[in-house]
């Protein structure tokens, strides 16, 4: 930005970057320029709020669309009729997609580290969470977001968030049960109720010097579903997974809850915890929700 920080010319420059600003795509210095401008200019502040509001309304409208109940099954039927993937065939489209995606992730990763998001302001923490969460399905984002917000950022900067006394009484029974399934070298560090983006979570954090694992439980909202019939269900509970950067997510749904394990463990190890945990935990949650 030039030296013109206020006045009509400055507003024009701010408005030209406003979209990138609300999408957290500006570098820190540029964002700070805008924040400084907002402190003195109510018109631009209002416009930024309006654009954020418009984005939220649009999100709600699109996500509110009804998804036909049988779609997942119909897609699956079609897949069953088709051949197994054949290693020898050449799929230029898939290769191009994979390369593009890898490049995109790499660039995002670098951008975040240049940004120094973990150390910086609330705004940059939000942008760090957004940049990672944006890479997984909306329904997976719920658990990943709380892990990043609470276990990765908040607990790291605030040593007061420790212990298990903030866990609502009816969830205390989770602790001995969960202990059976989480690797013994990952001790329970925090068990509490927390909230992120207007939603409440039951959140258990296991941590040692090298690794961090969260068990995140959230009440299901209308229309929220992982899909109920995954093939990955040796233990009788369909489990879904996602990976983004160093974070691995495994998830299942019960009648009333969405349950996630999120960690920086290897993909298979994170998944193994969830597979071991899921049947017993689902039974328990079904009893509690009743």
């Amino acid at each position, binding site marked *: 930005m030039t030296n013109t920080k206020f006045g009509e010319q400055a507003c024009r420059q701010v408005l030209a970057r406003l979209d*990138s600003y609300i999408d957290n795509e500006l570098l820190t210095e540029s964002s700070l320029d805008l924040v400084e401008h907002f402190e003195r200019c109510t018109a631009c502040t209002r416009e930024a709020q309006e654009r954020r509001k418009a984005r939220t309304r649009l*999100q709600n409208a699109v996500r509110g669309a009804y998804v036909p109940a049988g779609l997942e099954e119909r897609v699956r039927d079609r897949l069953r009729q088709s051949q197994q993937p054949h290693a020898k065939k050449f799929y230029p489209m898939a290769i191009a997609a994979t390369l*593009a995606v890898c*490049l995109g*992730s790499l*660039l995002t990763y670098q951008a975040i580290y240049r940004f120094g998001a973990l150390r910086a302001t609330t705004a940059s923490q939000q942008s760090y969470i957004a940049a990672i969460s944006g890479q997984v399905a909306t329904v997976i984002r719920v658990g990943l977001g709380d892990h990043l917000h609470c276990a990765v950022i908040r607990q790291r900067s605030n040593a007061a968030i420790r212990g298990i006394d903030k866990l609502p009484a009816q969830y205390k029974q989770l602790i001995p049960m969960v202990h059976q399934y989480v690797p013994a070298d990952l001790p329970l560090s925090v068990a509490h109720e927390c909230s992120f983006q207007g939603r409440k979570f039951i959140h258990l954090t296991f941590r040692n010097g090298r690794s961090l694992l969260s068990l995140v439980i959230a009440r299901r909202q209308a229309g929220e579903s992982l899909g109920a019939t995954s093939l990955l269900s040796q233990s009788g509970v369909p489990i879904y997974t996602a990976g983004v950067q160093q974070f691995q997510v495994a998830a299942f749904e019960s009648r009333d809850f969405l349950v996630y394990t999120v960690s920086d463990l290897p993909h298979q*190890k994170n998944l193994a915890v969830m597979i071991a945990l899921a049947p017993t935990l689902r039974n328990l949650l079904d009893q509690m929700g009743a």
Partner: protein
Amino acid sequence: MEVSQAMTGWAADAPPTFLSTASRLDLSAAERFEAEAMPHLNDLFRTALRLTGERGNAEDVMQEVYLQAWRSFDRFESGTNCRAWLYKILFHCVSHHRRKWFRFPLLKETEEFLEANLLAPAPVAEHVTDGEILKALDEIPAEFRSVVLLVDVEEFAYKEVAGILSIPIGTVMSRLSRGRALLRKRLAEVASAYGIGKTVPKDN
């Protein structure tokens, strides 16, 4: 059931330990595909619905996206970004089907527009319904609608959108600004057509 009873029940079941489960974790391609790709189905369907404008078409496209993803799944690496990969396939399928959508005369993406965009459009009125927002979105040209959906609703980063749509990042930014402005302009028209404060119940 009492909690104490439930606890006894688990002990009797002799649950698998962490290690015994880990050693059994040799997943087939089908299991990995289910676990990684299926949670994206609802998000992809909602995007497909806005791109095709019709439920039947959106369903057909979804069948195709998952079939193509499954056939090339051996090239997808577990634990990497499955979501962007699926969206890239979605846009490929959609454009393959309906090339004409992408033959909208390209509106000029120049300073001329940026100038107009600087004049802040009217705010989105509270009484505009979700249905009206969707209608307004469906009316803006497909290339702008695509970028607005990917950034605003699906929350992809600009660079990821550039990868998914195979366009330069500068084009992502200009289409986004223009798409958002077009959307708000349409919504302002809707709001003024009903008059201030009048609620019109209508949903999609």
